[in-house]
């Protein structure tokens, strides 16, 4: 990629099951104040931040133009604000493109979502399906994930026991993550005993309903070096859309993920994803997605997800030191949280979950039924 774009500040609220005492605006303001403090930036005309990218969803917010509520908090009064209405890692993608285009040299990104606001997030994702065929059949993202999990486990041989250990490890890592505050550790046995949600996916294998807010400041190299001691460069980006109807796809092929990752690797000049990264933050909404996305990202060979798990692949490759999405971030923000966590790691600010000497990380986001759409980003420090 021509030119360099850096992440120069990261802030998050805690992610909880129900942040009933907070409104979006309040959460975003906490995040914003931290970002401004980290960088010393302001919103002065011509010298300050003049562009912000928000991330939120009208259905989850139950509000048309969900960014409408946020303009004043984002400092976007008489400034540019654009809303990524898609998975949050796309905000990093779009911000990088906008800075590389020369249109601006610094961008504020803040995403918010409260999955607890609606009665059921499955009711929301059910609406992603077309009204004539896939909706009446009763699909939502969870049911679609169940179908993919079954197909993946049949093809790869990954077992329920292996996935239960994925959850166990995620919860263990989450204990060291100060932004995950109300998620208890669980044993593999407890996971296997938890009720079935969408066969073969069990309750403890699904990411918990989550509320929270996350933000970044991204800038051109010149500005990034001025406002941050340890800027994190976005050196590779890629995304890809698969077919919509599940029957048009091979649910186990990772078609879109491979393409998205391939584009990101190419743009970053990466040959071997197995050895290139000091850590990986991938969006595992359900436990089966950890080994499956690992295959698609090339962290292990195709079909070898189970073996990779057994041989301690996730620990060795430092996959999801934050606890990953299984630890609970709102679904539409997950990829952005992954990027935020990866950036914190490269900045050396990851506290108890720090991967020592981390220099290059892979962040991943996913959206749509059974991973119809994936985004991958590569982050590096000097």
């Amino acid at each position, binding site marked *: 990629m021509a030119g360099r774009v850096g992440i120069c500040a990261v802030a998050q609220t805690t992610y909880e099951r129900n942040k009933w*005492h907070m409104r979006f605006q309040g959460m975003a303001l906490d995040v914003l104040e931290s970002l401004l403090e980290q960088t010393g930036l302001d919103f002065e005309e011509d010298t300050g931040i003049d562009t912000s990218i928000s991330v939120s969803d009208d259905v989850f917010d139950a509000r048309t133009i969900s960014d409408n509520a946020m303009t004043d908090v984002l400092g976007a009064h008489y400034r540019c604000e654009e809303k990524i209405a898609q998975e949050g890692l796309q905000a990093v993608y779009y911000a990088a493109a906008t800075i590389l285009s020369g249109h601006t040299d610094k961008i504020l990104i803040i995403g918010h979502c409260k999955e607890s606001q609606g009665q059921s997030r499955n009711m929301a994702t059910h609406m992603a399906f077309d009204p004539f065929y896939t909706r009446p059949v009763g699909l939502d993202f969870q049911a679609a994930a169940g179908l993919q999990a079954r197909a993946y486990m049949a093809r790869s041989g990954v077992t329920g026991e292996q996935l239960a250990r994925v959850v166990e490890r995620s919860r263990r890592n989450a204990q060291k993550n100060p932004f995950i505050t109300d998620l208890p550790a669980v044993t593999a046995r407890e996971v296997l005993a938890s009720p079935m949600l969408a066969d073969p996916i069990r309750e403890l294998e699904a990411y918990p309903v989550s509320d929270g807010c996350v933000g970044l400041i991204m800038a051109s190299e010149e500005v990034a070096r001025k406002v941050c001691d340890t800027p994190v460069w976005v050196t590779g980006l890629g995304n890809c859309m698969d077919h919509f109807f599940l029957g048009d796809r091979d649910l186990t092929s990772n078609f879109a993920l491979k393409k998205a990752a391939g584009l990101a690797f190419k743009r970053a000049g990466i040959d071997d994803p197995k050895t290139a990264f000091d850590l990986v933050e991938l969006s595992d909404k359900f436990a089966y997605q950890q080994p499956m996305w690992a295959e698609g990202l090339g962290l292990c060979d195709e079909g070898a997800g189970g073996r990779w798990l057994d041989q301690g692949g996730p620990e060795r490759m430092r996959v999801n030191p934050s606890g990953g999405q299984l630890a609970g971030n709102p679904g539409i923000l997950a990829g952005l949280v992954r990027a935020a966590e990866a950036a914190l790691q490269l900045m050396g600010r990851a506290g108890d979950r720090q991967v020592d000497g981390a220099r290059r990380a892979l962040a991943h986001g996913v959206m749509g039924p059974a991973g119809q759409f994936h985004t991958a980003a590569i982050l590096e420090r000097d």
Partner: protein
Amino acid sequence: MTDQEASVKHVFQTMESRVNAEAAAGLTASYGYRITGENGGEWTVTVKDGSVKVIEGLHDPQVVTTASDQDFLALNLGALDAMTAFSAGRIQVEGNMNLLGPAARLFKKYMPPGMEGVEEQREELIRLNQILSIPQTFSTGPIMGKFLKGLKDKRILANVCPQCGRYQVPPREVCAMCRVRVTEFREIGPEGALTIADIAYYASPDPLTGETRETPYAAAHFMLDGCVGGTFWHELNPADIPRARPGARVRPVWAENRTGSINDILHFEIVD
């Protein structure tokens, strides 16, 4: 005009046999038609208890549509679009316009004499009717929460920007102009002056409940006593619409049962 041609008279003659039961259910209304021209006439269509009656003449209809015989026939044959005709002044409507919405699908498509059988073949486009709703629990957060609690106690609270001093009501987490957090609250009003009223004669039905607000109603801006830098947007008592003048003194009318909602103020009324 022979009996074999499409005509305004035939449109009305065939109406009762073309009723769509689902559209008629739950609808009680009477529609008048004044069709001008050589081949026109007057008719009243009453809908009640799921049944539709068409009689000649105008018999106290709640809404009357006037159009020329040519335009009315064209409308029914699908050769003229209703909204287009309406906007261009070729259809006129007097009375309760809101009743027209529910009647839009009252009748199956009109077919000229001898073509009735063709109708079933034509109606092949699939249309799916659905209401989608997800129950919500909205949080107020501390800023809006304090304001709403104030309303419960019959107090109107604004918050004040520490930098420019402007008041915002309802209070916001920040002052958008100064881009700073706002924490100081002050009580304003409750009385004030009307700045400007926006009078609504057309209220669209709530898509989830089907209910329509009574019109006219007035959304208005009030500059409350003690407030500096911005008005409060709420409702003016509909009865005061004829007296609404910029500068008129107003006071809030509080609901008996207050729950900590914006509706704890029913509306503002003009003070004599």
